[in-house]
C-alpha cells in the first residue's frame, strides 16, 4: 500500500561541547546576555574561525549512533544571509561535503517496526537571539548562542505519520542522551525540528510538499504535522492545489500559517569557507571515536534482558535513559537482587522524580543508598512502607539509610513475641471487626492489619501480622 503521508525531518541538535564551534567561548546556557562572546564569535573584522575538534568528534558519535557513514574528507562552507543575530552575515555550515551520510534508525510504533533513513548529518554554527523590548520598537541581540555547535540531521522522506515522526524524534533524543553529546531539550532549543510534509492526491500521486517550522515540543511536532496533513488533504479534496511554501506552527491556535512562499526563498550563495582548511577524518581518528561509543539503547536492552531477571516493561523503563540505567546497575552491589532494585526504582524512585519533575540527575539519593534500602527490605529489616518513606526522604535530602533506620529505630517488627501484645490489643479494641471476620467478611482483616501498622508506626511486618491475626481470630 502506498503511504498517504510522506514526512522528512530536519533536526538541529545542539552539541554540548564546553566551548563553541570556532572559538574558545563557553557554551553554557543561561549566562548574562553577551557574556559568552569574544571578537571571533562576534564576527569582528579581521577575526578567523578555528575548528573545535571536539565538536567534530561529538558529531561523529551522533552520526555513528544513527548508523551513518562518516566521510573521510569534509569541508565547511559559508551560507550567506543577512540577519542581526548572525554577526558575520554568513553561517559556517557544510554544503556538499558533510560530516556523515546514509544512516538509518529503526523505530517502533504500536508494535510495528519501520526504518527511517538518514540523508546526512553536518556540522554548523548556531546564530544568536533577538530580544525585543516590550516598551519600544527596539530589538537587542544576545550573541551567547552564536557559534554554539549544531549537528543538522536530515532524514529521508521515510516517515509516514505524525506519530511516527514523534517516535523518531524521541528515539533521536534518547540516542543523543546516551552519547552525552546533547541535552535535546526542545523547550530550551537544544533540539529543533523542521518538517517537510506532503500527502497523496486523490489520483494517487505524491503531492507538493510544504515546510513546517516553529514546533517547540515533541507533542507540538505531532500535532502540527497532523494539522498540516489534514489541511493539505482538505485543499486537495476540494479540488485545490497545495502551494510550495514555508508554514509556521501556531501553538496557541493549533494551526499552521503561511510564512513565506517559494519565490521569496533565500539564495544562500554557498561557497567553500576560505578561512578553514578541509578536514581529513582518517581511519585512526574514526576508530578512536568509535571506541568512545557507549552501549546504545537497543544493546543495553538486549543485555539487561539477558543478564537480569526483569519484565520487558521494567527493562524498557530502566533503559529509556542512560543515567537511569547506570543508576540501576550501580545499585546492584552485594547480593541484592536486580528485581528488588528495579522495583524500588520503578515504583518509588520514579514516582518521587515525577512528583518533582526531576530527572535521575537531580535526586540526592545515591545508588548505594538505594542498594542498602533494597537489601534491608529483602532481609525483612524494614517494611515496604518504611522503605518508600525513606526513598522519598533521601530523594529530597540524601543521607545514610542504614544509619537512619538505626537511629530512628525503624526496624520492622516481625518477631511474633514482639507483635503478640499489639495484636491482642487490636483484637480487644475492635470486637466488631473481629466479629465480621468470623462471619466471613475477610476484608475486615485489612482494617485490623492497618491498626497494627498504626500502633507500630509502620514497622510491623504486615505479612507476619496477617498470619498472627488469622490464627488468633
Amino acid at each position, binding site marked *: 500500500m502506498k503511504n498517504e503521508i510522506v514526512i522528512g525531518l530536519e533536526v538541529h541538535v545542539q552539541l554540548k561541547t564546553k566551548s563553541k564551534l570556532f572559538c574558545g567561548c563557553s557554551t553554557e546556557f543561561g549566562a548574562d546576555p553577551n557574556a559568552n562572546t569574544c*571578537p571571533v564569535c*562576534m*564576527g*569582528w*573584522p*579581521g*577575526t*578567523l*574561525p*578555528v*575548528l573545535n575538534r571536539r565538536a567534530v568528534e561529538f558529531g561523529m558519535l551522533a552520526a555513528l549512533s544513527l548508523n551513518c557513514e562518516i566521510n573521510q574528507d569534509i569541508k565547511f562552507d*559559508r551560507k*550567506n544571509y*543577512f540577519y*542581526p543575530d548572525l*554577526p*558575520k*552575515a*554568513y553561517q559556517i555550515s557544510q554544503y556538499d561535503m558533510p560530516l556523515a551520510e546514509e544512516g538509518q534508525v529503526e523505530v517502533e510504533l504500536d508494535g510495528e517496526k519501520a526504518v527511517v533513513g538518514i540523508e546526512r548529518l553536518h556540522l554548523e554554527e548556531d546564530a544568536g537571539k533577538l530580544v525585543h523590548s516590550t516598551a519600544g520598537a527596539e530589538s537587542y*541581540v544576545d550573541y551567547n548562542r552564536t557559534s554554539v555547535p549544531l549537528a543538522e540531521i536530515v532524514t529521508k522522506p521515510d516517515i509516514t505519520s505524525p506519530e511516527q515522526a514523534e517516535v523518531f524524534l524521541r528515539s533521536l533524543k534518547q540516542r543523543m542522551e546516551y552519547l552525552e553529546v546533547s541535552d535535546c531539550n526542545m523547550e530550551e532549543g537544544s533540539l529543533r525540528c523542521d518538517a517537510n510534509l506532503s500527502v497523496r492526491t486523490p489520483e494517487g500521486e505524491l503531492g507538493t510538499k510544504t515546510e513546517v517550522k516553529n514546533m517547540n515540543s515533541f507533542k507540538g511536532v505531532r500535532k502540527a504535522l497532523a494539522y498540516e496533513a489534514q489541511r493539505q488533504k482538505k485543499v486537495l479534496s476540494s479540488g485545490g492545489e497545495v502551494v510550495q511554501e514555508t508554514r509556521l506552527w501556531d501553538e496557541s491556535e493549533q494551526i499552521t500559517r503561511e510564512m513565506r512562499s517559494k519565490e521569496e526563498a533565500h*539564495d544562500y*550563495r*554557498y*561557497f567553500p569557507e*576560505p*578561512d*578553514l*582548511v578541509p578536514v581529513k577524518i582518517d581511519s585512526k581518528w574514526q576508530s578512536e571515536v568509535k571506541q568512545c561509543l557507549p552501549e546504545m539503547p537497543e544493546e543495553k536492552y538486549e543485555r539487561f534482558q539477558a543478564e537480569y531477571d526483569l519484565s520487558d516493561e521494567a527493562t524498557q523503563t530502566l533503559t529509556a535513559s542512560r543515567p537511569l540505567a547506570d543508576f540501576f546497575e550501580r545499585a546492584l552491589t552485594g547480593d541484592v537482587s536486580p528485581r528488588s532494585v528495579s522495583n524500588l526504582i520503578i515504583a518509588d524512585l520514579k514516582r518521587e522524580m515525577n512528583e518533582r519533575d526531576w530527572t535521575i540527575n537531580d535526586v540526592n539519593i545515591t545508588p548505594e543508598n538505594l542498594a542498602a534500602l533494597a537489601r534491608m527490605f529483602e532481609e525483612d529489616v524494614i517494611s515496604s512502607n518504611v522503605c518508600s518513606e525513606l526513598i522519598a526522604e533521601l530523594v529530597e535530602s540524601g543521607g545514610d539509610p542504614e544509619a537512619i533506620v538505626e537511629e530512628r529505630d525503624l526496624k520492622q517488627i516481625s518477631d511474633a513475641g514482639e507483635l503478640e501484645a499489639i495484636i491482642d490489643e487490636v483484637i480487644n479494641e475492635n470486637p466488631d471487626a473481629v466479629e465480621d471476620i468470623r462471619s466471613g467478611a475477610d476484608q475486615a482483616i485489612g482494617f485490623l492489619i492497618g491498626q497494627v501498622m498504626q500502633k507500630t508506626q509502620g514497622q510491623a511486618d504486615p505479612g507476619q501480622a496477617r498470619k498472627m491475626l488469622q490464627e488468633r481470630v
Partner: protein
Amino acid sequence: METELLDLSLNELQNKLQNSEISPVELVEASISRYQNFDKEINSFVSFNSKESLQKAREVDVSRENGPLAGIPLALKDNLCRAGYATTCGSNILEGHRPPYTATAVKAIEEAGAIIVGNANMDEFAMGSSTETSAYGLTRNPWDTERVPGGSSGGSAAAVAAGIVPAALGSDTGGSIRQPAAFSGVVGFKPTYGRVSRYGLIAFASSLDQIGPITRTVEDAALLTEIISGHDPADSTSLDQPVPEYHGNINPKPENLTVGIPAEYFGEGVDEEVETIVRQAASDLKAEGAELVDVSLSTTEQAISAYYVIATAEASSNLARFDGVRYGPRAQEFEDMIDMYSQTRAEGFGAEVKRRIMLGTFVLSSGYYEAYYGKAQKVRTLIKRDFENAFEKCDLILTPTTPTAAFKLGSRVDDPVQMYMNDVLTAPTNLAGLPAITLPVDANSDGLPVAAQLIGPSLSEQMLFDIAYLLQELSPWEPCSAPLKE
C-alpha cells in the same frame, strides 16, 4: 641629518641606536618632521600619532634584547587591527572603528620593539590599484605628485618612499603590496600564502590575502618578513613550518641559478621601456652566472578573470558583516531592518566596493555559480599547475611587476577594466599562493621607478631575498627616498 637618518636601513638604524649614535626620540622626531613637511601633499597617512610616538620613543630601551626593531618608527596599512586604535580600511563604514584586539603580525612587530606611528592610507577595503578610492582622500606618488602611488597599499608605499618611515606593513591580494611598491620605487614582498598569519587583517579575499612588508631595501624586507612570519593557531590557514633567519642568511649565489622568463609577462600591454629595463635586469643576473630559460605560463590571460571572480565572491561575503549593527556608523534614518541595512551600506561603501560586492554576489548566485565561481576555481588549479611545471625548469621567475610605471591621477578611475589590468602580472601568484618580491631596478625616461618581480616556488622566501639582494646590488637603482620638495 633628517633625510640621512630616514634613508638608512633597519639594520643600520638598529646599530646606530645601540651605539647611541642616535636616539629613538631623534628618529621619531625626524619621522614627525617628514610627515609634517610632506604628508599634506601626498596624504599617505589616515592617522598619525605624533605625541604618543614621541612618548614611546622616550620610554623605549633600545638594547638588543628588546627586539630588532626597538625604537624604530613603522607604519601599518589601515586594515591591520590594533587594539584601541582606529582601523578603518579607508572606508566610511568603519569610521572611528577601534578593534578590541591586535592582529598577530602587528603584535609581532610591537614585540620586536617597533614604534607604530600611524595607519597608512589605502584603497577602500584594499580594492584598487591607485589609492584613489579611499574615503579619506587619495594618496599621491612621492616621485611625481601628479601620479598615483599604486594600490591598494599606496599609503604604505608612499610613506616609505617619502622617508616618513623606513618600513611599513601592507597586504597583498592581487598585487596590493607589489604594485604600489613598484610605482613608488620601494621594495615589496608578498610571502607564501599561510607564511604570515592573517588574524587581524580585515579580509578582502581570504584565500588570496597575505600580509607583507614594504621597505626601501631587500634586507629590510627579509628582516620584517622574518619577524611577522610563523604559525598562528588563530589562523587555520597559517603554515606550521619553521621560520628561517632570512635576514642573517642572505647569501646571493647566482651560479647554478636558472631564471625563468615567461613570454606571457613581456608581451602585449607591457610598456616597452618597462620591458627593456626588466630584460636588462635579467641580463645582469646572466652576467653573474645565472642561466636564463624561457618558460610558459599560458594561463596568464585567464588569470585576471579568475582572480576577479574569486576575489569579488569572497569579498561579497567578507564585507556582508558591515551592517551598522555592532560597529561602525549606522544610517540615521531608515524604515525597517532591511532598510537599515540598505541605507547603512549605501552610505558607508564607496562606488568601487559596491561594484565588487555586486559582482561577487552575482557570481555566487544560484544558476551562475558553476559558470563563474566554479570555472574560476578550475582556472586557479590550472594556474598552480602552470607554475609547478615552470618550476621544474627554473628556480625562480623574473618578470616586470607592473605593465607600466605609475600612471597619472584620475586617468583610470572611470575605466575599471583598464584599472584591473594593473594586477595582470601580480594576481597569478596570489591565485597560486606563491611568494614574490618586487624591487626597483631602474628609472624610466620620466624619472619614474621601474620594478622587477621575482616569483619563487612555495616557501622559497630565502632564495627570493638572496637573488633580489643581488639584483639590488647589480641594478642602477640605488635605494633612497623620493626627492620631495618642502
